[in-house]
């Protein structure tokens, strides 16, 4: 990155299975207003908006930035839509960082949303692609196969998926914005829940959600006015072809590449020790051990041991998803930005009940597609 960039405001909606009280405009407006309030800036001080969103077909609104420009008070301004895949929220944050780092804008509002209740997202991803064989998989069966392959390679015991799910579900109880909060959740309930896509059970899985998230990014001059901005120490996106001899769904090169890039930018040598907290894109609990390896926190085949030892729980060496992660809420296009925002909240000491004491350096991660699209950033309380 060329110029410095910092997060100076964060906001997110209360996520729910169906936010029937708001339109799409109301949903993005709610998150954006909270971020502006947090940053103590007015709409007029925002120079440009980046809007992140997963496939348009999930709501049936094409190029939603054209409609949402009014709700974001952005008429007359540059409004840029980020997408790529389910990592859209991370792609949006990354574009915002690039706009600031390149010196194009000094203050940028990044917003991401999904309102799954307004469409049938499972059905949308099951559509028949013209010219291609019918493949009625859907995302769950894809992840099921990936997790099965991970278990075959790593010999992870069957309870790892349950332990990882219990940790995220208990963490979600501390997050006022989470959608799924089950105060009485137990390991036994998770282990006995319905098998959806072997080895993925119902309670290993993220819900379908409506939600939005927003962050205000500023350059060095803007950030200087704040007591505790979250400085961006590294930010990168990587994508690779999903159908390719080199592509490995379980341990994709794009994830390793992206992680190496942000760690190098941030001067991190041992991510497990150097980072204080991680917010990772884990739509199914079984994906956590796999990501721990892919992103360099554990060596190959050892990621599940960190979970088994409680290293990724509160008080562990690297708490993962203290917010509850995607198991708390998964508004697809927004979920990546929520991970980025939560990591910023942690290093600003503003994560409330799920604050990790003394968090100074955190990583946010978003992924999508066939494990072939990744976005990450590392944020810290000190300037880079």
């Amino acid at each position, binding site marked *: *990155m*060329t*110029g410095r960039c910092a997060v100076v405001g964060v906001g997110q909606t209360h996520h729910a299975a169906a936010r029937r009280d708001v*339109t*799409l405009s109301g949903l993005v407006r709610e998150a954006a207003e909270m971020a502006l309030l947090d940053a103590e800036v007015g709409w007029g001080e925002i120079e440009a908006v980046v809007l992140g969103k997963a*496939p*348009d*077909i999930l*709501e*049936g*609104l*094409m*190029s939603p930035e*054209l*409609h949402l*420009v*009014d709700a974001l008070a*952005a*008429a*007359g*301004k*540059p*409004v*840029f*839509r*980020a*997408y*790529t*895949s389910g990592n859209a929220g991370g792609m949006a944050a990354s*574009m915002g*960082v*690039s*706009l600031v*780092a*390149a*010196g*194009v804008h000094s203050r940028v509002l990044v917003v991401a949303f999904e309102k799954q209740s*307004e469409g049938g997202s499972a059905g*949308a*991803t099951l*559509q028949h*692609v*013209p*010219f291609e064989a019918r493949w009625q998989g859907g995302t769950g069966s894809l992840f099921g196969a990936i997790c099965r392959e991970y278990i075959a390679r790593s010999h992870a015991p069957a309870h790892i998926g349950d332990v990882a799910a219990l940790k995220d579900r208990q963490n979600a109880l501390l997050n006022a914005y989470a959608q799924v909060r089950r105060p009485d959740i137990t390991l036994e309930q998770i282990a006995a829940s319905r098998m959806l896509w072997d080895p993925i059970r119902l309670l290993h899985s993220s819900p379908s959600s409506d939600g939005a998230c927003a962050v205000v990014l500023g350059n060095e001059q803007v950030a200087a006015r704040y007591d505790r901005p979250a400085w961006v120490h590294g930010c*990168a*996106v*990587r*994508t*690779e*072809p*999903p*159908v*390719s001899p*080199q592509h490995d769904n379980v341990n994709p*090169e794009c994830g390793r*590449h*992206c992680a190496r890039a942000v760690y190098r930018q941030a001067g991190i040598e041992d991510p497990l020790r150097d980072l204080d907290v991680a917010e990772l894109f884990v739509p199914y609990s079984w994906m956590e051990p796999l990501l721990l390896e892919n992103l360099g926190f554990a060596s190959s085949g050892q990621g599940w041991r960190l979970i088994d030892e409680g290293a990724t729980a509160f008080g562990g060496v690297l708490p993962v998803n203290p917010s509850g992660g995607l198991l708390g809420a998964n508004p697809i296009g927004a979920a990546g930005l929520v991970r980025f925002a939560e990591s910023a909240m942690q290093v600003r000491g503003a994560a409330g009940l799920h604050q990790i004491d003394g968090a100074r350096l955190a990583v946010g991660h978003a992924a999508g*597609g*066939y494990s072939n*699209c990744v976005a990450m950033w590392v944020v810290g309380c000190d300037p880079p």
Partner: protein
Amino acid sequence: MTRVGVVGFASEVVSASDDRNDAELLAPVVDRALEASRVSPTDIEVVGTAGSEFLNGVVGGVMGAFDALPGWPPRAHSHLEADGAFALYESWVRLMAGEGRAALVCAFSRPLAHDPLSVLALQLDPYLVQPVRPDATSLAALQARALVDSGRYRESDFATVVTARRGGGDVDDLLRDPYIASPLRPLDCSTVCSGAAAMVLAVDEVAGRSEGRPAWITGIGHRMERQSLGARDLSMSPSTSAVSTDVGLSGSAVDVLEVHAPYSHQELILVEAMSAAEIDRLNPSGGALPADPVMATGLIRIGSAAAAITSGQAHRAAGHATNGACLQHNLICLMEADR
């Protein structure tokens, strides 16, 4: 300060009935752009692709394009549901931010849906306007009517644009054509087709290695207007005026200006809004009217302007792209050759 230049461009437009898939459409164009640029695929660190999943009928549209791209290693690749011109903007931003030294920008368009112009109605307010399903041409006609009512242009001016872009015809004959949506006639509306475009960008250090003549981007920007048609003066394009000032086009002379106007009257609105001091050649490529691969059309305008510079036919050129009903979102890229 980093400088980014266009060092390669290629495009192809084909009939909407062409049955090649996205990658098959894109691959030859990518190869030609890379070859023209003399940039090695291994130098490409940033990739920007764009298309429309609604128009192509595919969710996760980027997945179908990979076979046409330099495959490995993983790159900083972003995919947009937008015109390729916006992918150009993102790639330029990423190169300016130091995320790479060369970029590949691609757009592909295969509007398979039976009526692409009614699919574009899905861009409108989903609660109050979408259910009425106004097609893009009907909305453009409202704009054309507002322009006529403003007293600045007449239907014969629209016909003059049509004869210039479609390479002939008589204005009086054109005015005898029946309306498709008054005051627009069929030839006032672009011919929708399939197509693909690819552009190679490089920072000065890499661009300097090639023997070609880079089209240096001296200004690129975009702005959006409100969506509600009732809240805008449709006969004007204030976002285009503002961007023209932002990028340094307003009040200055260009050898070539390529305008993305899918309807004849929109060219008049846009050129007026840009207020360039002098335009030597306007839309020498023919513009969007004779061939409109929706979502690649804007990138092709900018690429055509860049090609005028790289081929030595222009010193300073600008390209424009638009998205949304009645020119809601506008982007301008201004380019120059070294002296």
